[in-house]
């Protein structure tokens, strides 16, 4: 078992920009000019995706687009590990049903909720709120059938995903893994006192180190450090640590690591 895994590509969308542009400069807020339609092939799915899910699916597509031969890896050997946010559902989607079933004093009439509110709820309301929607939609879009995981661990979500992706490749359970995270906190500034809100998506394509060219960036097991970038990008929630790592890798600021998870980037 090799403890070294090569980074074949990184798909990065963050307030600083998309792709390599995202590794330069920085500012809190939205990903500039982000249009999910540019990345999501099945447009019908867009209405079932929150903004965070759209960012995640887009980051994965952006990453894979940089790996010419990824489709040569058998689908069952392609793994996917995603750090995500649990806030996938939209409370507002339930508002019409709540409106017809509650009085002005805040009391909900369950019978009215069932009989009058029920028809007003979108049949796929539950589906729209699933936290593993990045994994669900992206795996279907790119035919990833292999090992997988979806993690909701706050700001550590992306790091957990990256760690499990690294483990899957290093233990030989996958020949290609997409691992990373996405989140969108724009508009939710009041929930994160002391920070400015941002959004972001960063996904690493990981492969066995045997396939890496000399001088490639690799992900190793060991102690490392992480440069916090909240001051330049805003608080990115589930995606924060992995976006920071992606930016470090794309800028060549090596090694940079996920100290609590024992992983760091270096050159092969």
């Amino acid at each position, binding site marked *: 078992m090799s403890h070294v895994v090569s980074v074949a590509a990184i798909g990065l969308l963050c307030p600083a920009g998309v792709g390599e542009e995202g590794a330069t400069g920085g500012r809190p807020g939205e990903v500039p000019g982000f249009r999910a339609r540019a990345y999501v092939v099945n447009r019908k799915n867009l209405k079932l995706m929150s903004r965070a899910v759209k960012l995640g699916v887009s980051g994965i597509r952006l990453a894979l687009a940089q790996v010419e031969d990824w489709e040569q890896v058998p689908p069952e050997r392609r793994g996917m590990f995603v750090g995500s946010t649990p806030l996938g559902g939209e409370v507002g989607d339930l508002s019409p049903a*709540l409106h017809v079933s509650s009085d002005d004093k805040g009391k909900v009439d369950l019978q009215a909720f069932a009989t009058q509110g029920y028809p007003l709820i979108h049949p796929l309301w539950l589906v729209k709120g699933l936290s593993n929607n990045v994994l669900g939609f992206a795996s279907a879009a790119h035919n990833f059938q292999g090992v997988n995981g979806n993690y909701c661990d706050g700001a550590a979500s992306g790091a957990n995903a990256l760690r499990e992706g690294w483990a899957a490749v290093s233990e030989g359970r996958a020949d290609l893994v997409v691992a990373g995270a996405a989140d969108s906190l724009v508009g939710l500034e009041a929930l994160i006192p002391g920070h400015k809100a941002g959004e972001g998506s960063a996904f690493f394509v990981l492969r066995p180190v045997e396939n890496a060219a000399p001088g490639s960036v690799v992900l190793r097991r060991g102690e490392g450090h992480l440069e916090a970038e909240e001051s330049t990008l805003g608080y990115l929630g589930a995606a924060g640590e992995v976006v920071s790592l992606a930016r470090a890798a794309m800028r060549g600021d090596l090694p940079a690591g996920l100290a609590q998870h024992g992983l760091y980037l270096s050159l092969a």
Partner: protein
Amino acid sequence: MSDSHRGVVVTGLGVLTAFGRGVAPLAEGLRQGQSALAPLTAFAPQGLEIGMAAQVGVPLAIPEGFQDDRKAALALQAAEDAVGGADMSQAGVYLGTGLSSVTPLELYQDAAPYRSKGGFDRQALHRDLSPDHVAPGRHLPERTTALLARSIGANGPQMTSFSACAAGALAIAHATRAIRRGEIDRALAGGMDAMIHPLGVLSFLVLGALSPGTCRPFDRNREGFVIGEGAAMLLLESEELARARGAHILARVLGGGSSVDAHNVTAPHPEGKGAELSMRRAMKEAGLVRVDHVNAHGTGTPLGDRAEAAAIARVLGPEVPVSSIKGAIGHCIAAAGAVEAAACIAALAQGWSPGTAGLEDPEDLGINAQAEPQQDHPQTILSNSFGFGGQNTSLIFGRA
């Protein structure tokens, strides 16, 4: 550092199901072929096409700061029961969880001030959001993982698996691998869920997944699942460590496999290809070519049971006994994989295999669906858990 062949064993179990608190009532109920499904009483199902549920009836201690969160109460109770006196200071906590247990009333409290002409004033909500107002805390699953870690004094890694109905099983698989690779020696792993509230029920009703009557896995007349709730936590540790401290070993974790359908976020692959891959991976990891029993995901939905049966037949043949306990304890959603793992462990330890409550007229699906429990002394049981998003997990447990 790493020894991927390190043995992993189960030395503790904490379970809450509709049969009650603890593994004993669950095991006894299943061994007797009973069903804990009962008329829904958690709320009045006025106007809803639902009559049955599998509710946990025992009183729960509500953790401080988790007043709205039934799931957390279930998980905490299960965790404390599982750990016993084991030293958890270096242990990891791996928790599978599902959608928030927010109720319509709570949603109303969050949303009502922002109603606007029958719609919703999103800008006003965002303007007023604060930790003390609209309560996002109750939607955050990782805080329960942290609660469990605090309560048992675990300082190791924490992971919250949010993988729909595969979440509990996947959490166990992750913890097992962390022990195998030597990252940790001991872990608390399992799942929790509590969706027997109007919004939870509505969410599945609008998808057409709930049965208006009872749950009949693999039956010609199956119409869907009955919603359940519960939690199960397993104390996992390296076999070497368990033996050194003289712990009673309940079962061995022989293997785990996962896959994605890559097909549809709600419907299973019609041929069960993802389920097949998940089971094959678990068999390979366990180094087995056969198992003595399959605890199927078996929700009782027409499509799901057919796809899973086809996959089981391809991987293990038509003769292996197959059952689903969802006719007895309902579908515990994110907790299902962990609760059913607990049932498998109890069956292995006591020498029986479960039947399928509700199965009266088996459809010919090419498998050996077992309606009644058997005293057949299984040595190995494979347990399947499949979730929305297409995530599949299979676990294999062996007799200690």
